[in-house]
């Protein structure tokens, strides 16, 4: 049974993602028929449909895939590395560092003079935060890494609150708040070009940890005895998360829970092997973000619901269920 499930999991997820991607190109405030999309893409003459697909929906789709994928992947790696089902990408400070960087750009108004100031600052913030966490936990092992990550996250959170507190005008505070809620709306190819290289390199680093994560299920000592370099694994996970999740948060704002949930959705189907969960978690993460993004576009209402808000609203109850489930099964 399990063998069958794990063999079909990745193809099923890819098929689901393909369908969701198609839906994401068609759906929105303006609905497009599949035929219109095909003819608009085939015909090089500029048209409204072509513009809408190429400049609005396609970059948004690509970003959703990149962001969801890296969040799911990073969550799976960190849960495996820390041997803790409640670990998530934000744990090491990458997301809050990126948020703080972006908030600084918004606060000082750099975003007015340079369109990409927010994601650029976000990226720098993420790298700085994880760098500090890494420096603080040098030679200290996994626990001190987690503690350093929590400390850096808290510090970044304090910085964000400070910026909101001291915001020069209500509009600035509003701008910061909405950015923090996370969204894929109004993102262009510039955002994709900025984030994609970091996300891809980050994903590459994270994918190198698979075998080590399997061995780490036996604890760090046994993993070392099996020839795994635990320090190298930790470094790969950290650098991959900083680059990938940092860049993702920098362009979309904070999107929580995806990294926490995605590994849990696929793990039971894979015999709970942490290394085997990496690619499926990335696909599941991408699917979650795509569905959530579609929902924000399709749900009725005057103001578009923010992606981060929607994911959290659905994610938090799941988290609660997870806590209860873990307590019940002791897994």
């Amino acid at each position, binding site marked *: 049974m399990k063998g069958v499930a794990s063999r079909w999991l990745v193809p099923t997820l890819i098929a689901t993602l393909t369908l969701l991607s198609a839906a994401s190109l068609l759906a929105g405030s303006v609905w497009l028929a599949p035929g219109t999309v095909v003819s608009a893409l085939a015909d090089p003459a500029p048209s409204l449909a072509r513009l809408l697909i190429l400049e609005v929906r396609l970059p948004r789709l690509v970003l959703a895939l990149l962001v969801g994928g890296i969040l799911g992947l990073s969550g799976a790696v960190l849960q495996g590395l820390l041997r803790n089902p409640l670990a998530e990408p934000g744990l090491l400070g990458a997301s809050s560092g990126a948020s703080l960087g972006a908030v600084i750009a918004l606060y000082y108004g750099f975003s007015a003079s340079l369109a990409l100031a927010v994601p650029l600052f976000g990226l720098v913030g993420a790298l700085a935060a994880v760098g500090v966490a890494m420096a603080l936990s040098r030679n200290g092992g996994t626990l001190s890494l987690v503690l350093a990550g929590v400390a850096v996250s808290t510090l970044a959170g304090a910085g964000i609150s400070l910026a909101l507190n001291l915001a020069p005008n209500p509009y600035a505070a509003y701008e910061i708040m909405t950015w923090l809620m996370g969204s894929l709306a109004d993102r262009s190819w510039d955002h994709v070009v900025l984030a994609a290289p970091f996300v891809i390199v980050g994903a590459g680093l994270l994918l190198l940890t698979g075998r080590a994560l399997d061995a780490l299920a036996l604890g760090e*000592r046994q993993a070392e005895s099996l020839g795994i370099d635990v320090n190298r694994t930790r470094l790969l996970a950290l650098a991959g998360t900083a680059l990938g999740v940092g860049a993702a948060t920098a362009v979309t704002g904070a999107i929580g829970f995806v990294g926490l949930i995605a590994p849990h959705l696929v793990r039971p189907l894979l015999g709970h092997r942490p290394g085997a969960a990496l690619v499926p978690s990335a696909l599941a993460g991408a699917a979650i973000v795509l569905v959530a993004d579609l929902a924000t576009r399709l749900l009725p209402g005057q103001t578009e619901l923010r992606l981060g808000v929607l994911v959290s609203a659905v994610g938090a109850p799941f988290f609660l269920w997870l806590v209860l489930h873990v307590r019940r099964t002791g897994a």
Partner: protein
Amino acid sequence: MSRLALDDVTVRRGRRVVLDRVSVGFAPGRLTVVIGPNGAGKSTLLNVAAGLLPAAAGTVSLDDRPLTRVPRAELAKRRAYLPQSPRVDWAISVERVVALGLTAHLPAFGGLPATWQPRIDAALARFDLGVLRDRPATELSGGELARVMLARATVGTPDILIVDEPTAGLDPRHALDAARHLRALADEGCTVVVALHDLDLVARIADDVVAVHDGRVSASGAADTVLTEAVLGDLYGVAVRVRRDDEGVAIRFIG
């Protein structure tokens, strides 16, 4: 066939000296048991011998080559190590846990080649785990997990096997079984180093015994030269009677 030797090894944890200038050798084909009271430094000795803990001074050598010069992958293939009360953190099946013992033998890319499956099956059979094959490792009893871990440690047929308290939590039958398997491995030429508290079991399987006390080797040598009333009495600080008869050696503490 590998000889493992510690030469003047000192290990510090913070300022505390955990092992103090320890020199001891483990010969191929021999089963050496490390005994001593709690906190004597047995586990540290095993860790440092396995190359998992750096020595502050002195050298650990494998066939006269310093362990620090042996590449990580080669060491992992030749030496298996099992810590005290091992845990599995995910609900991985027993079969997959045993397969993890072959991590160092995996090809650079891809999963475990099918040619290794018979080895895994044999390891499962050896430790009476056939029926538990698909059970998640998190749902095992302590004794069952201990057997899974022994199967995991021996599946790669290492030259050197270092095991810390493998029989803790095992019922008498499985403890004896485990001891017999370790004995058999040594008879096949493996260098086996085991930390044990059950002295009757030690007397039954050990070729050599190393007694550790306060981070120092207080006695070492052939089992019957160390398992004596004088040495054991000093080691544990309790009066001891050692009786040898046709049924073996019985060791009784009478403090």
